[in-house]
């Protein structure tokens, strides 16, 4: 790294650097010549005007042309056994446990971690976000979370970006992050978007980039989230012979913010039998780019869309409920939708969950598998002790808040449909095994 050191402090600086085993070299000084003058053994090797250094690169013009793909919803047969479908989803690489990787990193160093990446009765449930206390004698916490959903880019990068932002934010509020004291970081990992012989679809890829950035602007403004940093990596293409592989346009949306009292943080695991299970947010027929469709080899067209206004209202209300300590557990719905979130909550907490799909606020005409696996955004699963039911429901009055079931001692996920028809009935150990097995030995 380079540092500017006042001339009268140079000696002290070099002495300190030497004491600390840091190599430091005096390279030069600032002048008012207006030129960047660089010499080697007394001979000039560069002499560039400041104007050229700052303004010398001509503005690039990258052509972009948005052409929506003609996509449609697949004809999916009604699954015979939803237990099997759920287990298959839990074993998918985008959903399964990453514990073997998480344990390889020191996630407690500096002894401030309050919500760890692995939570629950056996220290192995999937946390939505991390909370830590950077100042050890204070209970003010910092919340860190992420959102990422590149599969939606296959339909429309605008909604991919909107969903990544929303996922980052809902993970953040799930653990108790203050939605009004939050910042984001947009990390782009993209394929080459410049039209060329090597990239004949460059105009489309550039348009994907434009659409992603439009959503970035629209949703960060709508949510009131400043972007304080980010990164971009724009040439993620691989070519061997005639085969070219471009990565899907991907944004990792990182979120950082504050929780006033880290002791009010909420983890995702269910806490005690007889607690009430609530679903916050509506469920739409939005399975485009979902894990469920991917498992069936389909893409679909109904990509999830974010309604920032209602989401923001929901997140603010959730913050109030957390502040009043009404929330026993909270988990976001993302890859795999409601069914996966229910399974994760149950096996992380070591108790069963019994819910009725008939209570879910879903679009008219949606099939049971669609309700279970839709990836509609801005939804959260919350459990509440019975003694807090009235206060909790009063807070969410007028908003989408559905009491769909209860936590139970029987260690089973039981989902019923119309007329109490059993749709899913799986021991939580079996679900956990399906979720843990794929990457356990990695």
């Amino acid at each position, binding site marked *: 790294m380079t540092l500017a050191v006042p001339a009268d402090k140079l000696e002290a600086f070099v002495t300190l650097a030497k*004491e*600390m*085993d840091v190599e430091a070299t005096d390279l030069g000084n600032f002048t008012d010549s207006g030129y960047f003058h660089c010499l080697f053994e007394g001979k000039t090797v560069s002499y560039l005007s400041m104007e050229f250094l700052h303004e010398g690169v001509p503005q690039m013009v990258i052509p972009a042309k948005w052409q929506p793909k003609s996509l449609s919803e697949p004809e999916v047969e009604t699954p015979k056994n939803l237990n099997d479908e759920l287990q298959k989803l839990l074993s998918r690489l985008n959903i399964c446990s990453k514990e073997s990787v*998480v*344990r*390889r*990193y*020191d*996630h*407690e*160093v*500096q*002894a*401030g*971690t*309050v*919500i*760890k990446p*692995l*939570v*629950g*009765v056996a*220290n192995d449930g999937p946390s939505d976000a991390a909370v830590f*206390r950077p100042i*050890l*004698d204070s209970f003010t916490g910092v919340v860190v979370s992420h959102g990422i959903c590149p599969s939606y880019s296959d339909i429309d990068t605008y909604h991919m970006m909107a969903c990544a932002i929303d996922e980052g934010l809902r993970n953040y509020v799930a653990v108790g992050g203050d939605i009004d004291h939050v910042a984001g970081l947009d990390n782009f990992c993209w394929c080459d978007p410049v039209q060329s012989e090597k990239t004949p679809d460059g105009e489309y890829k550039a348009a994907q980039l434009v659409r992603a950035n439009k959503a970035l602007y629209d949703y960060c403004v709508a949510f009131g989230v400043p972007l304080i940093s980010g990164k971009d990596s724009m040439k993620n293409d691989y070519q061997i012979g005639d085969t070219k592989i471009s990565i899907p346009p991907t944004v990792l949306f990182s979120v950082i913010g504050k929780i006033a009292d*880290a*002791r009010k*943080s*909420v*983890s995702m*695991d269910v*806490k005690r039998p007889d607690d009430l299970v609530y679903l916050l947010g509506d469920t739409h027929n939005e399975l485009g780019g979902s894990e469920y469709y991917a498992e069936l080899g389909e893409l679909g067209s109904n990509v999830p869309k974010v309604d920032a206004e209602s989401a923001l209202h929901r997140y603010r209300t959730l913050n109030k409920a957390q502040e009043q300590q009404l929330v026993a557990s909270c988990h976001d719905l993302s890859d795999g939708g409601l069914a996966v979130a229910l399974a994760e909550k149950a096996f992380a*907490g070591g108790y069963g969950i019994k819910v009725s799909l008939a209570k879910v606020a879903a679009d008219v005409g949606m099939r049971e598998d669609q309700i279970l696996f839709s990836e509609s955004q801005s939804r959260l699963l919350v459990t509440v002790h019975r003694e807090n039911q009235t206060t909790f429901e009063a807070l969410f009055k007028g908003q989408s808040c559905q009491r769909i079931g209860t936590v139970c001692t029987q260690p089973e996920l039981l989902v019923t449909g119309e007329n109490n028809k059993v749709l899913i009935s799986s021991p939580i150990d079996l679900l956990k095994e399906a979720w843990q097995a794929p990457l356990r030995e990695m």
Partner: protein
Amino acid sequence: MMPKQVKAIVIAGNGTNCEREVAFACQLAGADVADIVHVAELLAGRAKLEDYHFLNLAGGFLDGDDLGSAKAGANRLLNAKIAGSQETIADQIRQFVADGKLVMGVCNGFQLMVKMGLLPALAGGSKQSCSLTFNDGGRFEDRWTWLKVDSDSPCIFTRGLDAVYLPVRHGEGKFVADNKQTLGQLEQQNLAVVKYADVNLHPTMEYPDNPNGSECAIAGICDPTGRLFGLMPHPEAYIHRTHHPRWTREELPEEGMGLWMYQNAISFIREELLK
């Protein structure tokens, strides 16, 4: 007369990353002073160990863990001369120990003590007889473990303790001794202070309760005086209930179990050294 102050020092170096929380644990346990001092300041002669009662060697990867965990760091402490003298930091530590003071090494600090020969120092010498090597699993791991405490151990830090629950965060934590005789002596003299245990608090060789395959399930050892103690798990990482991985679902006391070890150290200093 001014009451005498308990003074703790935490050594920081290139690669240590737990010195802040160790110093905080010392303060919380009642130390009047808990200074974080860089190795460079000791080598410059600006800070001296003799001004303190409780020496803490913190976790991290001192000097990049070059040549093996804490090995390059151990060589620096053993051999680098303090400015304007022929004295090394190791010489200062030896005097510190001879003065009856306390030393605790956690994780990389434990590795450092073992590789400097400060532990177990069975014959009172400083020849290295044990080591901490790569986990049987072959990888770094962060997980919480139960430790069974040997209640007959002379260890000052574990007085009155039966079991503690603490996180391990290491890649080289497998305790090994140079021969069976060393292991036998550690056991006979009750110097194998803490052992990885199952939930029923029985020492175990089974992964993951024993996270690294340590011989005799040894997680930490002390010297025969009980004043020098090193362990792989991190007591400074459980000093408040919110450090516990299940604090959101269990009723836990405010104070974490790791704090007890620091409280024992501070009490000893007040009662034995400052009397």
